[in-house]
């Protein structure tokens, strides 16, 4: 079954897809100002990488890649939880989640 999927569509298409997804994530990070969207974009980038791992795992007939993905999904879930809680406390303190307004690091 797995081989069929790869045969039907071809590995290069998957790679292009992940590059596209990753770029979408980066663009989201760079050009959106809301922190929620920022977090979502990071998730997209993460999942692009996960997808790539799965694809190569199938391609090489090696299940290790898929195991990695499970780990990284678990970590991502934890990361989102932490990220969101930071977000909440930023909102409470600054009254905004627009990170263009957070310029306390200015040297």
């Amino acid at each position, binding site marked *: 079954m797995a081989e069929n999927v790869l045969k039907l569509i071809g590995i290069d298409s998957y790679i292009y897809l992940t590059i596209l997804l990753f770029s979408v994530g980066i663009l989201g990070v760079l050009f959106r*100002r809301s922190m929620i969207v920022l977090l979502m974009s990071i998730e997209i980038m993460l999942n692009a990488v996960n997808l790539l791992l799965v694809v190569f795992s199938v391609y090489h007939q090696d299940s290790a890649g898929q195991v990695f993905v499970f780990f990284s999904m678990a970590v991502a879930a934890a990361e989102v939880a932490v990220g969101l809680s930071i977000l909440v406390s930023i909102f409470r303190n600054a009254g905004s989640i627009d990170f263009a307004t*957070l310029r306390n*690091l*200015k*040297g």
Partner: protein
Amino acid sequence: METSLVLILILSPFIGFLYNLFAGKKTREASGVIATLAVTVSFVISVYLFQQVYVSKTPIVVHLFDWISLERFTIGLDFLLDQLSLLWLLFVTGIGALIHLYSIGYMHDDEDKDRFFAYLNLFVGFMMMLVMGGNLLVTFIGWEGVGLCSYLLIGFWYKNQDYNDAAKKAFIMNRIGDLGFLIGMFTLAYIFGTLDYAHLKADFSLAPLTSPTVFAGLTLAGVCLFIGATGKSAQLPLYTWLPDAMAGPTPVSALIHAATMVTGGIFLVTRMGFLYNVIPDVQLLIAIVGAATALFAATIGLMQTDIKKVLAYSTVSQLGLMFLALGVGAYSAAVFHVVTHAFFKACLFLGAGSVIHGLGGNQDIRKMGGVKSVMFVTFVTFFIATLAISGIFPFAGFFSKDEILLSTFEHNKLLWAIGSLASIMTAFYMFRALFLTFFGKFRGTEQEKHHMHESPKTMTIPLIVLAILSTLGGLLGIPGYSWISEYLAPVLPGAPAEAHHLGALEYTLMGVALLGAIVGIAIAYFLYISKKNIPSADEEKEGFGKIIYNKFYVDELYNALIVKPVYALSSLFANVFEKVIAYIVDGVGSLTGYISTQARLIQDGSVGTYLVAFVVGLCAILTYLFIL
């Protein structure tokens, strides 16, 4: 047993020092007593060890531990108690104890006496280390330590800037000599690979010393060690610190700057006698320097009006005589004179201190006179010591000085003449000081006359003891049978010095020396008793007398030749080089500051900007790595 005794011997003064340093303020009255006890303990142990070595004739060697251990080069913390160091120990601790006792009376009214006694104890400890050292390095520790104590005690009354300057002068002059000591030590370590006296001595008897490079190295070592000795023992050209060192309290002058520390140079040269015996050129140098110093200092002493300065120049002059003896290879005569000189010079200084104490601080002999009627004990002891230093039979100085002059006569007639002349001058200026101080009418103020009193018992007892020693000290080395040269024979280089055969020549020389001393005294008597001359005031002096009174302007000369150029150099460095360097360093600092101020603007604090920079940078790196 012996190790622990030696440890107690050396540690006792150090414990006294620590006690007075930390607890002295609380038990003020006891500080002097404790310090005296600490030194007395050392004296008692010294006597015991002396007796032991005297009987067994084998030196006591104590090896505490390896201090510096390298491959084929080891220096241990060793003590060597042989005949030579025990003799030194005896008079260092003995006279030290007496002077501590004297100081209890002399420093009675001083508010810092605990500090005084602490330093004095420290000095005795270091002096013992100097003479007990089993190798050159341990001796050097003591050497530096006594220099430090000398500095601390000269500047004891630190509120007076002149005294501080005198202390610094003494320290710096000594440093010049110490550099010589160090270089000499390094040279010996380089040639022989050891600094141990015993090993060095053994190597000397084994090693072929004919090789020119080794000979040159030995000459260098000999000269450098002698430079060290000239610094510590105040010889030409490094003597100028000693007269200034009289700024310290009088017991200090007696102990450090007359009896013990300044004999350190003589001790060193005697210790290294086996080295000097193979380099006769350096021996000649020592003899010449000694004779020149003896004459030079005696000349200056003729015109001094400060009683302590007179004694200081006489110390320099006597030390010169001792070096003269060392230079002609008469080590036992030099050591003999060290011992008798320690007796009578300590007595003279303590007597002078007693007079100064009785007169409430006056040191100018022009303003003294007639003191004998009030201070009888001081007068008698001072008189005895003066007879001794002048070389009058049968006092101690006669025998030791005679021994030196006799040995010199055999080697070099010219040096003998110089030494004899210096001795005659000594007799003259010592009696000049005596007559002006104790005879005639009192020339000070009424108030001082009223204040004048005999010193307390703690001060007169040491005087009496020292006067007795000055009288009997000559028995150590009667011509014909010299106990001291026999005693020292095992540790002195070369064949044991034969007792001088007492022929007509020897008796003539003794007679000449005695006659010279009497002539010196007679001139002093004629000038200051019969004619009642009084040295003129400073500004009235003229001609040669003025030059002598101003010490041949040596201080001024050193000032112009060395101090001023050094100041000029340092101000050049301070005002030119330092400024340039400062500009460069400051420039680097402000440039960095400017650049970072500009660079700071990049950090606008917006996370977005950082992210853009991050992504662009990452892309650039990836591009560079994988595509280009």
